[in-house]
């Protein structure tokens, strides 16, 4: 919480007295008072109770190496994929780094990065990567180990834990809104609970309400036995949820507004159309915790560029859509004043092969950069550039990018720090203890003993910069071989200095 919000919230504590006789419940959910109370409650749970996660699925496996380009290794990059390599002078430079640049279509994401509202997470994958679309996506959505099948989604497990018993008894006064909403006609595996999806699908909040109507008489609850009975019960619940939520969603949609300019409908940017709805629902006060949106077409086996010009073609169009959509959405949240309680993340089936194929496309690969967007992340880059001289070489001299960040570390920070689930709960939801990535912490911590200059020493997966805060955790020994500057240092472990080497702390 920033200072201004804190003051506003603190002064709000006295307001209920002045509003003697009025129940807070009678006020609209989006009133400044209710919002500030929700944002400033004394206990941890209410502090994070209005926080929202937006999941953006890039369907098909995005070609990460043509998304975030390691310009420090340009020649190697060019030689790996000469038929689709982006010319160096077309790349978009980024503030504060000379080693990394964006695809030329990504102007909106560059602006978000430069204004501290976009984080690049490098080389995200998981151990024993799978290159089947279905299986790999399933692994991402369920957060399973690659050799384990899970039938529940990672965010579905979180919601099921937080809202037990759903959907029986929902909506209710504690949670009158859908727990999760997927914009579209399907609900993703990521939202699956143990019995059914914890989310609902809506394509268009306006037509949804008209379509569902007011409900009407409810038939007796008798069900036949067996599988048929299970299905009938399931369908009746879907019917009841549709009726139960349609009004709330419509109210939020009517109360909310989009304040930024989105790509025109004629552009057919599916993703921005979806995010536009999400922003409006958030602004309208819907308490939904998780939104799931997607953009398809990333399975670019062939012809990902056009006319031998790597700047144009299907992949450039997709990145352009992603970039424009995230920019409009984030600007919308900023203008609405909701940006501090929303974070978003992208994910995709897998990255694509580092070397291109002869069809001006790329086959299924391993690691790729992912993004987080919002104002809550404390670092603009996590992990470092993919090392193109240290690739996984397989049969046929194919080359894949190695993992730096296990995607489940992103989930762990989101559950623990963003949703406030706490460490033990986070571990149990993700079935392992994953070290933090410090996504939401401005402190770079050690995860192990090692050289200061070894990226693996640090939670952020790279060497800390001079403006970052450092914490050497208990039991860790960091060896410092050259003069180094940091903002602050908390020393619970040990630093061993080479002779004459100094650590300067700017404070």
């Amino acid at each position, binding site marked *: 919480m920033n200072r201004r919000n804190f003051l506003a919230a603190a002064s709000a504590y006295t307001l209920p007295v002045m509003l003697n006789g009025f129940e807070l419940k009678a006020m609209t959910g989006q009133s400044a008072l209710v919002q500030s109370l929700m944002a400033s409650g004394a206990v941890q749970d209410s502090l994070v109770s209005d926080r929202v996660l937006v999941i953006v699925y890039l*369907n098909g496996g995005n070609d990460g190496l043509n998304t975030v380009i390691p310009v420090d290794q340009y020649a190697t990059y060019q030689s790996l994929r000469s038929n689709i390599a982006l010319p160096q002078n077309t790349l978009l430079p980024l503030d504060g780094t000379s080693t990394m640049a964006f695809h030329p279509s990504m102007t909106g994401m560059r602006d978000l990065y430069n204004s501290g509202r976009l984080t690049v997470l490098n080389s995200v994958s998981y151990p024993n990567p799978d*290159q*089947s*679309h*279905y*299986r790999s996506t399933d692994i991402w959505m369920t957060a399973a180990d690659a*050799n*384990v*099948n899970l*039938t529940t989604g990672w965010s579905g497990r979180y919601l099921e834990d937080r809202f037990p018993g759903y959907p029986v008894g929902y909506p209710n006064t504690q949670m009158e809104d859908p727990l999760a909403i997927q914009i*579209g*006609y*399907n*609900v993703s*595996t990521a939202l*699956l609970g143990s019995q*059914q*999806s914890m989310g*609902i*699908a*809506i*394509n268009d909040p306006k037509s*949804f309400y008209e*379509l*569902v109507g007011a409900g009407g*008489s409810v*038939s*007796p609850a*008798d069900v*036949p036995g*067996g*599988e*048929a*009975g299970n*299905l*009938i*019960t*399931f*369908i*009746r619940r*879907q*019917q009841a*949820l*549709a009726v139960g*939520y*349609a009004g709330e969603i419509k109210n939020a949609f009517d109360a909310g507004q989009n304040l930024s300019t989105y790509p025109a409908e004629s552009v057919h940017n599916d993703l921005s159309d979806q995010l536009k709805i999400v922003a409006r629902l958030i602004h309208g006060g819907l308490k939904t915790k998780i939104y799931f949106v997607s953009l*398809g077409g990333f399975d670019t*086996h*062939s012809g990902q560029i056009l006319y031998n010009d790597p700047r144009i073609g299907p992949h450039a169009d997709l990145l352009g859509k992603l970039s424009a959509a995230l920019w409009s959405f984030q600007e919308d949240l900023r203008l609405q004043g909701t940006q501090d309680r929303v974070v978003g993340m992208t994910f995709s089936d897998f990255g694509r092969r580092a070397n291109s*194929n*002869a*069809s001006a*496309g790329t*086959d*299924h690969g391993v690691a790729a950069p992912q993004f987080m967007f919002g104002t809550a992340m404390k670092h603009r880059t996590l992990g470092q550039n993919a090392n193109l001289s240290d690739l996984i070489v*397989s*049969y*046929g001299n*194919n080359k894949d990018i190695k993992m730096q960040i296990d995607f489940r570390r992103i989930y762990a920070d989101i559950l623990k720090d963003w949703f406030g689930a706490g460490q033990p709960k986070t571990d149990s939801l993700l079935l392992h203890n994953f070290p933090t990535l410090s996504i939401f912490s401005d402190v770079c911590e050690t995860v192990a003993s090692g050289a200061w200059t070894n990226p693996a020493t640090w939670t952020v997966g790279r060497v800390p910069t001079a403006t970052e805060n450092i914490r050497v955790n208990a039991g860790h020994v960091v060896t410092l071989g050259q003069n180094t500057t940091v903002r602050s240092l908390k020393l619970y472990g040990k630093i061993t200095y080479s002779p004459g080497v100094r650590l300067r702390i700017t404070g």
Partner: protein
Amino acid sequence: MPFLDPYTAVLDTRAAAHLLRRATFGPTQAEITQFTGLTAAQAVQNLLNNAVTTPPPPVEMDETAANPGQPFLDKPFNGDRNFQFGQFIKYWWLGLMTQQTAPPSLLDKLTLFWQNHFVTTREVVDDYRFVDRYLRLLRANALGNFRTFVTAVTKDPAMLRYLNGNENEAGKPNENYARELQELFTCGAFDPAGNKNYTEDDVKTAARVLTGWQYTNFWTVGSTSFDTVFVPAKHDTTAKTFSAKYNSTTIAGRSGATAGDLELADLVTMLLNHPQTAKFICRKLYRWYVNPNVTPDIETNIIEPLAQFFASAGNNWAIQPVVVKLLNSQAFFDEANRGAIVKSPAELLLGSVRFFNQPVPNMTTDYVAFRKLFEFLHWRMQNLQMNTLDQPTVFGFEPYFQTGYTKNWMNTTTVALRNDFTDALIWRWYEVKPGYNLGVDVLAWATSLQPDFANVKSTTNPTGTDPISCVQVLDAFLVNLFATSLFQTQKDFLIDKIMMQEIPRTSWNFEWNAYRADPTNSYRRNVPTWRLQNLLRYLLRMAEYHVF
């Protein structure tokens, strides 16, 4: 639990309806009557007898274009009409699913199974002639031999386009088809214990076997033919050795004009020899026809023996005997499997059209009405996440592979859209052609139930005939409507709350007789019409109508 042993009892009405619901897109009442009293073996044979593998071709359905009602596939490729002709092929196929010969055939339901197995899509293939050839290939092989089928699909121009086989060349492999051939078309990604069925290197190796296949004349305006060709110069002639998952099989490298076919034959043999391939296909057929939920018990007692039979020397990968065995089995007719699948949009929409006897206009002579009917149904199916011939991915429609299986057809949005469709059958606002609005004329239907219609019993005519009661009306509506039976509490609710809106049931008798006495009086007609519409509208919105 009965398994693959033949179901020997004579089919009662419910069993006949069950078979027809599963093997076709939904029966008419007349078909159920025809099938009642047959043995399962006779009934399944009937479903095979009328398989039309070469139906008349689709026609121009745009009345403003040249030669409406005439076939277009025998004419040179017309790029300007590419999208529309693709749509007409979709409507043509939906027409075949809906308009059945008598007795109905199981071919179209099975062709859809294979189209959702060997997926290609109109949108990606993008040449209507390719789409047509692909669909005809599926029809011709649906009941044929799986070895022949896989081989033919691999070389099919639509498939070469959809999974980039066309771009797979020696030294420049494109792995797309090689992967899906294994993961989706033959052995599947994992065995039931969760072990991988092949390695990543096997994908790359299979891609090399498949190098050199191309198609000709794609999107060539004015061209009158197109074909698959094998280009020896683009084929990888070196030997290809697979992993232990395939018993370390080596496929000898070949060169020359026959290299492609020879290596493909070896590859298909290797794929069929994989111990999971027959099981993978049989499991998918079981999920399609019987129950998406495959328990370890089902795996052992149905999938494994059926797969053994499928791959046995005697059967040698013939598909028809496997389908027959499954549809004839005790497991298929088992009560526990009735109502165990959520209707797909095809089963809901086309099934409703068939169940309520909505006529399919003649495609050749009444092409505008034909187009309008299937435009409507296609668009509605697309909204409900079943875009005919345009699956979202190569995996096919999500409810056939995703956790939860056919439950995935139902969510808050599709539930509402389904209601909107069934409501359209009640309100009858969609005009197929003058005089034919899609939907059920509930009053005419109830009138047909009333014996001795004009002879109304009353104090002045004590020898007249009693009115049909609300109970009779509901019972008549319910005949074969649902796969499961309703409880008495539900029936009472439907009559008292929905049909009679909490006024006494006897009011119906007065209202109905008033209509009988003055059947052209619009007020007298409207009262029972309104009640019947409320009732049928509610019935079609019930969860029970959406499982089969």
